[in-house]
Structures are given as structure tokens and as C-alpha cells.
């Protein structure tokens, strides 16, 4: 009897985030008129195709660095600069491929610089990436002189001919990251290094390289988000990514990412991203003005922290119960 109960509890603990997502979804669907919507302009389909891909990518980038026990606070700035550079290349050459390659390279480069500052110079991840955030944000402003770039319709057409392309690309990136970090020896090494860098190094793992690659991966993901974003907006702005770092952080935390390295799961990005999207949109449908979204995000972080602790406590209790039985 008790054994079964414990199983149920541990199932609930493990699936708690999915349950929250489903509950939120149901609540908004039942209690608001337009959250679910119908037909081609269905609200749910809309947010799934238009907003969710970005939240998922943001959370993914953050989670990858959090696996190594770090954090990337330059995600927002990275999105800005990679998309802006892409737009500049598009403006001068008109060549979409050149633009995409430039954007991705810029994103990866910023990530690598972060990684080097952290792994080789030994700066705390927060200091390195937060300074980077300010430098890059400022750099884009200097380059752009505050102006925006638009009019790259050919480039936009690549992504906008089919509505599902944002979601498809972001899910593809997510699956790639999931495969890399959950199924390969490279992924295992990353978890080892994140959990205990010196034990990793003493087991023959090149921990510095692993850390640099994680930040590079995060830069890549940020760049993908940036490239998609300007396709959606039709303009590259020098302040595009200013609020994204916070959003990424919130989505990652809600997706179950942990500051302790070696614990976060890549697929948490999917759940975390979706919860944020559903919550933000649902609040609007309940009648909370969009302007309160930032506040809600902060509140959600604090609440997530609380829930996390509660879950840990439950899990411990559950484990103890099991142990006592086995003794």
C-alpha cells in the first residue's frame, strides 16, 4: 500500500512542472473566453507559433550554461548584436545566407569570449557575462547610433512563408541540444564538469574546453533566437534584447534549472518556456494589462524558488520513507 503511495508522490514530484503547465492551460481555457480560441486564428496556436519558440530558445541557452554551474547574463545583448549584425550584412549584401552565417558567428564568438573569461581567466560567470552584457549592449548602440535597420524582405520570406517555421527551428535546436547533452559522451562530460570540475579534470576531462563549448552553444542558441526575431519583427533594433536575459532566466528556473551544476535538464527549456508563454498570455486574457508582465515574471521567479524548496522537502521525506522501509 505505502509503496504505491510513494510511487505516486515521486511521480507527481517528477512531473510537477508538466502538471503546472496543464493546469494553467486548463484554467485559462475554461475561465476565459478567448484564450483557447478557434480556427486559424486560434490564440493557442498563435502563441505556440509566435511567442513560444523564442521563450524556449532563451531558456535553452541559459540552461546549457547552468549545467556547467554557470550562468549567461549576456543572452539579451547577444541576441541584439547577432541579429543586428545579420541585418547589417543583409542591408549591404542582400544575401540572406551571408546574413545568417554572420549572425551565428557573432553569437558563437561572444559565447566563446565569455567561456574563455570564465574557464581560463577564472572570472565568476556572473561577472564575466554581466560585464559582457553591458559592453555588447553599448557596442550595438555605438554601431547603430540608436537607429534601426529594416527592409530585408527576402530574408523574412524564408521564415515567414510557413507559419510553423519558428517553432520547427526552435524545436530542432532543442532536440539537437537534448541529443548532445543527454545522449553523448560530450554531454556526460559536461554534466561531470558541472557537478565537480576538479573531479572532472582529474578524470581526464578537459573541463576548460567543456565550459567554453557550453557558452559557445549558448551563444549559438541566442543567435538563432535573434535571427528569428528580426524575421518576425521586420526590423533590427539596438535595444531588442534588453529584457530577454531576465525572461531567459525566469523560463530556465521555471523549467527546473538549478544553480548547482550538473543538475539542470535540457528539456526543462520546453516546459519552462511554455509555462511562461501560457502564463503571460493567459494573464492578458484574464484582464491583467500587458504592462504588468515584467512584475509577473519577477513574482514567478520568487514563487518558483519557493516551490523548488517545497519539492525538495517532499522528495527528501519520500526518500526517507523508502529508506526506512528497506532497512
Amino acid at each position, binding site marked *: 500500500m505505502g509503496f504505491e503511495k510513494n510511487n505516486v508522490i515521486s511521480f507527481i514530484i517528477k512531473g510537477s512542472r508538466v502538471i503546472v503547465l496543464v493546469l494553467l492551460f486548463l484554467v485559462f481555457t475554461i475561465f476565459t473566453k478567448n484564450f483557447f480560441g478557434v480556427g486559424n486564428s486560434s490564440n493557442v496556436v498563435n502563441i505556440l507559433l509566435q511567442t513560444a519558440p523564442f521563450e524556449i530558445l532563451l531558456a535553452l541557452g541559459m540552461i546549457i550554461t547552468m549545467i556547467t554551474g554557470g550562468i549567461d547574463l549576456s543572452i539579451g545583448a547577444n541576441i541584439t548584436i547577432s541579429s543586428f549584425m545579420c541585418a547589417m550584412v543583409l542591408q549591404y549584401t542582400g544575401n540572406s545566407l551571408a546574413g545568417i552565417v554572420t549572425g551565428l558567428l557573432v553569437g558563437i564568438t561572444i559565447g566563446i569570449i565569455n567561456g574563455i573569461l570564465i574557464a581560463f581567466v577564472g572570472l565568476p560567470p556572473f561577472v564575466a557575462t554581466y560585464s559582457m552584457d553591458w559592453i555588447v549592449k553599448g557596442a550595438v548602440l555605438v554601431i547603430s547610433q540608436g537607429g534601426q535597420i529594416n527592409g530585408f524582405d527576402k530574408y523574412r520570406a524564408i521564415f515567414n512563408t510557413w507559419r510553423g517555421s519558428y517553432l520547427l527551428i526552435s524545436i530542432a535546436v532543442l532536440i539537437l541540444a537534448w541529443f548532445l547533452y543527454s*545522449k*553523448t*559522451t*560530450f*554531454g*556526460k*562530460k559536461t*554534466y*561531470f564538469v558541472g*557537478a*565537480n570540475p*576538479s*573531479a*572532472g*579534470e*582529474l*578524470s*581526464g*576531462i*578537459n573541463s*576548460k574546453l567543456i565550459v567554453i563549448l557550453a557558452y559557445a552553444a549558448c551563444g549559438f542558441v541566442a543567435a538563432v533566437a535573434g535571427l528569428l526575431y528580426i524575421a518576425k519583427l521586420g526590423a533590427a533594433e539596438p535595444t531588442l534584447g534588453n529584457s530577454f536575459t531576465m525572461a531567459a532566466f525566469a523560463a530556465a528556473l521555471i523549467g527546473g534549472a538549478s544553480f*548547482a551544476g*550538473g*543538475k539542470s535538464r535540457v528539456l526543462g527549456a520546453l516546459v519552462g518556456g511554455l509555462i511562461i508563454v501560457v502564463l503571460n498570455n493567459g494573464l492578458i486574457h484574464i484582464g491583467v494589462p500587458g504592462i504588468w508582465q515584467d512584475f509577473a515574471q519577477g513574482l514567478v521567479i520568487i514563487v518558483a524558488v519557493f516551490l523548488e524548496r517545497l519539492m525538495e522537502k517532499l522528495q527528501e521525506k519520500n526518500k526517507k520513507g523508502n*529508506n526506512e522501509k528497506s532497512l
Partner: protein
Amino acid sequence: MEETRDLLELKNLSKFFPGVVAVDDVSFTVRSGEVHVLIGENGAGKSTLVKMIAGINPIDKGEMYLEGDHFVPDDVVDAQTHGINMVHQELSMMSNRTVAQNIFIGREPMKGGLIKSLDIKKMNEESQKMLNELGVKIDASSKTSDLSIAMQQMVELVKATSSQNKILILDEPTSSLTAPEIKSLFAIVRKLKKSGVGIIYISHRMNEMFELGDRITVMRDGKYVGTREVKNTNEEEIISMMIGRNIGTLFDRTYNECGEVLLETKELTGLRFKNVSIKVHSGEIVGMAGLVGAGRTEVAKAIFGYDPIDSGRIIKSGREIKLNGHSPRKAIDLGISYLPEDRKQEGLFLDFTISDNIIPAVLGRIFPSGIVNQKKQKEIAEEYVKKMSVATTDSGKIVGSLSGGNQQKVALAKWLLTQAEVFIFDEPTRGIDIGAKAEIYALMDELVGNGAGILMISSEMNEVCGLSDRIYAMHDGVVSGELFRGIDDFSEDNVLTIMLGSGGNHE
């Protein structure tokens, strides 16, 4: 002799950690004005016990009586206000503060009426007085990080004696001190003893306990074994109480003919060692003795390619290898293994499963495609769990939940899996129970029997002397002597003398 009375009485104290009973039903008394030596192997539960007395670890079961009154400390502060103080094995000083601030932290003198401010002058003066009283020549206003380790230890001692002191606990205070430093520490302890303080003194060193102690209490595997008056006992009795069996069977070895030289260093010089030239042959266990901080671990880490070297050569099976920091991978591929001394910080991934902890050093070899095969990993892990007789059948168990001995077996399994030829074991039996120790000794014997070479760094003198074919002694970064079994005197005293650099100097 002044009259002595029972100061502290322990009754049936017990402490449970997940998976282990760290202290099991221990009872004894400490008198005023005595040095009560607490001895036992690593992992015998001494540190846990004294931490219970000092209010750091909560008491799970049992009672304590202080001067006849029932007293169970709520926390450290409670213990301190009742006159129970402890000097920890690891230094815990605020290195950026002054000596005086360290001594007075938590009970700083204040001045002023309505708005009170720190009385820094008084703090300095009073600390200076205390330091002078105990004959410690330190300026109370100097920064703590400017002092040597030994001096910092003295400051800790002064700090622990500065309040109304009844019981003073010293946890291996001499482990990183040199001979003259130990002498001045002893002088202080004797002074305190004279003033009627009851001192619980944890030590590993036989000579120390006979020089300083009044009574000796032995613990083994968390249990109380017995208490002896120093004048009525001898070394053999204490050792047999500690180990609980004949030493002869514990260190049972099949001695082999030494084979070729597997590993050799020539004039290796690095951050904390100089001109270290050592050899490890196939089929032999080479012991490396020395004090903490003598540079043994640093040499090992340099050989393993973890720490950089300044000069010198490392030769593996006749071929010189270039390992200069950040390349343990290369060392592993060349057949060198290193089991770190601190298994929690450097050896294991405590939150991960047994199976995950066994494979990190050979990921590329067992998964050549780069894709992890869960089934294969599980098979390998279970094979080694069985081979090492880890006390669980489930390789999916979290390593952090295992006992120390089983954790160490998992850490060892990782290196067995690399099929190395040279194993460097740094404190291979630290903090594990006697049963696991015996198994690890047997495993080491088997390894060298199969042609491997082992370099064993250990601070346990009986282990070094009982197990090694050959011993290098290290002192202050240099090899101060080399001893051969059957030729040289392998007694602990002799090795200790050479290790402390007083005899047979190379300089």
C-alpha cells in the same frame, strides 16, 4: 598533583548519519586537569564524537553531564558559554582579519554610551595579554594571513582558551606542525592542564600520546573500546585495541620479484617540491611518507599532469613523457592513474549514480562512437560493483548515500577500469572502516601481483610501514630518505625520524 575530579561525563552517546552509525553508544568521563587522549583509526568516529560535545553535531541519543549537571549543548555558542571549546583540525580562521579580531569574534568588547562602537584598542590589548600569558610571540594587531600555519594554530588555541574554560578539545593539532612547533604547543597544553582544564586530545601519533597524555580512550568503528591509564599501558596494547585484530593479517602481502621500472621521475621540481627523483617498479608497492604539506600530493599531481612542473623529467616505461599541467587525459592514456586524497572534492561526483562515477575516465574507450549506450554502461558498472564488492547491487544508487568505504571502492573502480600500469593512491584508506581497509589492501596486493606498480601516499604510519616494499620519506618538498624492506629498519619511529628530516638529510 592537584586533586582531580570528574568534569565531563558522556553516557551512551550515539550519532546516526544516513547509512552509517558514526558514533555508537559511547560512554566515558573526562577529569579536570587531565589530558585525555582520544585515539582510533580514521573513520572511528572521534571527530564526530567531539563535534557532538562541542555542540556542532546534534546528539541523536545519549546524555552528557558537565560537573554533575545534565547538559546537552543546543549549539556551539551554548557549548562555549558553558566552557566547552574546540580547536578544529582544519584551520578555521578569518584570514583577512587581525589576530585580535579572530580571538574576540562573537564577544567583542564595546565602548560608548548610547551609540556603542567596537573597542578595538581594548581588543588588541587583551589579546596581546592572552598571547603573552601563553608565551605566544605574535603581534595581536597583525593580519592573520601573514602568520605561518603553526602560528595560526596557536591563535586558535588562544582563542579557545580565552573564555571561561572547562573542557578544551584539540582535534589533531599537530598534524601540520614541525617538531619545534609541536614543542611549544605542548608547553601551552601543559599550562592549561595545570589550571584545571580538562583536555580531550585527538591524535594519531603514539609518541605524542605517551608524552602528553594521562589517559587514553580508544574508539573503533564508532564504538567505545576502552580507556587506559597511560602509565599502565603500552603501544602494543593500544594498537591492538585500535585495530581489533593482529596487524600481521591486515597487511598480509605476497612479495613479488620487482620487474622493470614503470615510472621514474628525474629531478622533478614544481610549485612545492624540488629535485624529486623516484622510481616505481612493476610488482611493488612504494610508500610515500611525510607530513601534511610536505609536497607528496603535489608530486603526484605533477606526475599525473594536473599541476605544472618547472623542470625535471617524467619517464614512463623508458619513454620520456611531456605532461605539463592540464593533461591528466594524456597521463591516463599512457597508463597512469591517480586516486585523489579528497574523494568528496576531487574523486567523486557525489550527486551522481555509482554507474556514472565508474566511467568518467574511460568514456572515449567504452563509447567510441561518442554516443552513450546505457545498457553497456550498466553492464560495466555492475561488473565492477561486484568485483569491488560494493555493498549494494544497484549501480543506479547515488554515490553520496554510500558509506565512506563503499565510496572509496567506487572511486577505485574508476581507475581499475582504465587498466593502468601505474597507480598513484593518495591516502587510499582515509576515513573508511577497517573491513573496507582490509579489502583495499588485498586489492592493492592483487594489483601488484598482476604486474602493476603502486605509489601509495599515506599519513597512516602503520599502513606505510606494513604494506610497502620500499618507502620514500618526504620533508619540506624534498625526498629526505629511501628505505628498503628487509634492509632498513621499517619501524614507525625510524620512518618518522627520516620523514621529519632530522636524520639522513639529503641537503
